[in-house]
């Protein structure tokens, strides 16, 4: 789980990148609270072969990355 709520870019992507580099997990949950972070994490995740589903609640986004 990566909790990147409140962090501005590129921190959320850096945190996801670190997780991917660490263990190349098959699935990863990422929390962010800005649309721009959703877009950036999505782009990075796609480049690493993940598919992404996003659910929004109260202005916060839960992203599920899976391979």
């Amino acid at each position: 789980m990566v909790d990147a709520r409140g962090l501005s870019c590129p921190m959320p992507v850096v945190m996801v990148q670190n997780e991917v580099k660490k263990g190349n997990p098959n699935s990863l949950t990422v929390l962010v609270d800005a649309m721009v972070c959703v877009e950036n994490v999505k782009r990075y995740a796609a480049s690493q072969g993940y598919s992404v589903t996003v659910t929004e609640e109260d202005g916060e986004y839960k992203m599920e990355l899976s391979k």
Partner: protein
Amino acid sequence: MSKKINIWVLIAGAVVGIAAVALTALGNPANMGFCIACFLRDIAGATKLHSAAVVQYIRPEIIGLVLGSTIIALATGEFKPRAGSSPAVRFILGAIVMIGALVFLGCPLRMVIRMGGGDLNAFVGLVGFAIGILIGIFFLKRGFSLKRSYTATKVEGFALPFVMVALLALVLIVPTIFVFSESGPGSKHAPVLAALVIALIVGALAQKSRLCMVSGMRDAIMFRDFNLLSGFAAIFVVVLLGNIILGNFSGFSAYLQPIAHASQLWNLLGMVLVGWGSVLLGGCPLRQLILAGEGNGDSAVTVFGMVVGAAVAHNFKLAGSAASLTDGVYSAGGIATSGKIAVVIAAVVLLVISFMNIAKKERN
């Protein structure tokens, strides 16, 4: 690695390029259709925060960029008041980025516009900018963070948009309270309405596309993501073509370029500060305006820091002086000793901020 390029980035980049060429044709200084640093500096001058007589004007472009962002963000539900991510550090970083930009004579956006105008000095600036970004990335990879922001009140979110509306109202109703340059770059400007409308459009597009000069290069290096860099490239190409079409282009040269100096070490070092500081901030000066427009109080504080940095730069003679040709005598321009000392001090401050904000393993 090829990546999907967001079409909005290319559109925004192209529109910024066209707007820059158009604003210059309408009266803005040469190679200065847009320059966030210069324009904030002009506003600092017009509001008497500094007294450099040649750079004083309330630039409607700044007002338009911020409000364009606010309007589109409100319309699309992206206006989100937030703040609390190391505001004082951001204020200082904003001031440092501004000082670096004024040493070079332009923000990253003007650097690209100058490149498109054939100014080779700006290519030296680009090298410095890239070096600064690499230094910033070095710290990002080691855990640099200004910590998280939090949801804030609407008043916080509307801080900079409100200041912009107030500035616009005052300049329209009681312009005599401000000072305006009678000569020099501050006296050259496009008609107010044209500048405002063009900037509103550019501000909206920049918000929509997340256009940012520093993030383009940063993402390309860190993540092999060329999305935002495509906007940077689009601006360069469109400005270059625009200048060629309008007959403003006379080849690439470092000699006597408009509002630029040929003191290359300082062109380079000035932009190192800008690249480094902007990476720490998470975006270039244009991006800070746009983020502040969509409710980011931290970016609003950064913009205030930039305004103060501009005042400091001119009050203490840190800014670069342009190359000139007077009575047949060429001067390459450059910066005074005070400016050189300021660049070194600013680099030390950036180093301290960079090291001191490397996060421990755990996060709150």
